[in-house]
């Protein structure tokens, strides 16, 4: 019987990079058509359609595109094709990028604010992607291990460079390069589905004190005006007066702040008067990286639950309208996500990769940036193999 099969459809505009589609199921068959290619002049290497069945194997696809003639032909994709996914704690990272790898064979991190990462080879990342570094010891006593393990949102500046929102210009940081470091074991890897963990606890990368307090974060904070937040700043990072507890004025009562403006995906302002607070210290010693707890900001509610009176003229007015976020991909298949509350943690669906064919060797399955892709996905309850 096939009465419980599931079908979904949709469309998206390609960015030129692999596209993940969230669904309430893991499809076993996917097909798509590239409307832009179909609606354009015939051109070699353009891929007009793609098909995938789970029995082909993950990352494969059958494609239909134009060869050099150009004539429409069938071809296959054997890597970075179409695949299904079910995200969980153990499946959150992509391939490890390290010395001798491909397409990135080495990378370096500069002493700068923000730190600049330069890769040897096209990194393939785009602004908004989240990565985690590991083993950033240039020597046994120098390097950037202080930032190893922090999830960073990257800002793409070129095919071989991107920046991370961290000040590594301090005296305790030494420029890092996988090619010259001891053992060449430094690496980074992409967090495949960072929106699973949004808003989550976010690592603070900078604090600007004043009558209001400006917070910079290492990855997307995902907050909106009216978001109630709490801080956990370990002593070595300086600005401990922001911490939720202990509250010396009202013992036992957590200190929370409200987001009163959002500058961008990694910067926001809270209504805490931090004048006179200890300066934030990002220049942590290299040796302290062992057991170092990072400074964090966490979502603790919003003005609707915090007992704060809101009226016209208040910086928190009107109350936040939680809807599809524009700062990152936090919308869910089940509808708008409530920042500061639970974002669906059980992601599944499929990915259309940017792989090429065996004949159409320079084509891209997911198309070029701006291409409009229409897709359909199926999950059959009866498979006859």
């Amino acid at each position, binding site marked *: 019987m096939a*009465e419980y099969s599931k079908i979904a459809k949709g469309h998206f505009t390609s960015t030129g990079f692999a596209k993940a589609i969230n669904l309430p199921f893991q499809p076993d068959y996917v097909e798509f058509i590239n409307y832009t290619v179909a609606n354009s002049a015939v051109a070699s290497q353009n891929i007009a359609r793609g098909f995938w069945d789970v029995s082909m194997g993950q990352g494969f696809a059958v494609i239909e595109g134009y060869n050099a003639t150009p004539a429409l032909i069938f071809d296959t994709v054997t890597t970075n094709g179409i695949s299904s996914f079910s995200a969980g*704690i153990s499946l959150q990272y992509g391939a490890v990028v390290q010395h001798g790898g491909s397409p990135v064979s080495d990378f370096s991190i500069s002493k700068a604010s923000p730190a600049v990462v330069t890769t040897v080879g096209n990194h393939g990342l785009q602004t908004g992607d989240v990565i985690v570094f590991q*083993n950033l010891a240039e020597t046994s006593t120098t390097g950037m291990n202080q930032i190893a393990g922090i999830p960073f949102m990257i800002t793409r500046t070129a095919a071989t460079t991107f920046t991370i929102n961290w000040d590594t210009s301090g005296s305790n940081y030494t420029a890092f390069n996988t090619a010259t470091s001891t053992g060449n074991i430094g690496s980074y890897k992409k967090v495949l589905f960072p929106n*699973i963990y949004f808003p989550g606890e976010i690592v603070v990368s900078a604090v600007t004190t004043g009558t209001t307090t400006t917070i910079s974060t290492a990855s997307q904070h995902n907050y909106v005006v009216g978001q109630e937040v*709490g801080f956990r700043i370990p002593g070595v990072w300086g600005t401990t007066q922001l911490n939720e507890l202990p509250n010396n004025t009202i013992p036992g009562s957590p200190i929370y702040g409200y987001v009163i403006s959002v500058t961008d995906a990694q910067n926001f302002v809270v209504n805490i008067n931090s004048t006179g607070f200890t300066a934030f210290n990002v220049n942590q010693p290299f040796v302290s990286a*062992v057991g170092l707890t990072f400074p964090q900001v966490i979502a603790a509610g919003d003005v609707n639950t915090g007992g704060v009176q809101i009226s016209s003229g208040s910086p928190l007015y009107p109350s936040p309208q939680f809807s599809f976020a524009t700062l990152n991909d936090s919308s869910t298949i089940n509808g708008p996500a409530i920042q500061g509350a639970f974002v669906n943690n059980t992601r599944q669906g499929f990915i259309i990769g940017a792989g090429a064919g065996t004949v159409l060797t320079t084509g891209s399955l997911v198309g070029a940036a701006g291409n409009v892709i229409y897709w359909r996905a199926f999950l059959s309850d009866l498979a006859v193999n």
Partner: protein
Amino acid sequence: MQDQEGVLAWVSERLAVAMRQAEDLILRDYIVSAASQINAGGGSNGDNPTNLGISDFSLVATTLDTNNAYKFMSGIEGMDRFGTGPVRSAYFMLSSTELQTDFDGLVGSGFKSQWDYPTNTSALPSEYGSVFNIRVLTSSEAPVARGASKNGNDVYYNTVVGKQAITHINQDGYSMNLIYRDPYYSGMLAQNATLAVKFAQAQAITQDTAIRNLLSTRLSSGVGP
């Protein structure tokens, strides 16, 4: 639901267990994503976080105490039994079973095996032991971020909770349903029945100062999934 129908009863029982497990996993993942973290630094493996050291338990328990979190369990009074000792009133900590060898290594440094409690009547089946104000539960479903530490080792999320830290919120007046629709209502040919669960709940941290994820790596090697 008819007890006489063996297959149906068996499947219902399994699905009911799966329903509760799904609820636990959703809450687990939520806590991983949203609760504050403390990186273990009391261990000796040179990673970040380090493996668990006794001082890490003390730090996280003190943090929750300072934040006026409520403990789950009252203490167990000492008894005149060889090898046992009293157990403090405690918070719960959920850890991975992969850390059990590390806990064994802390026996003598402050970790008390559940077997060394004066009485086991209040111990849960999954309880491995206690340290200071923390009673440790282990599960193979405890969250682990593979290869996520400074040195690329697995990071274990040891969630320490106070009583008022978490809850789930019912929506539409219920939290979850186990549903049975007989074949007549499940398909035109009345061949298949439907047995399903559905959830209508949101997980919530009600007091974020009363919960901490104590992140750690592992000292012992060669033990794993």
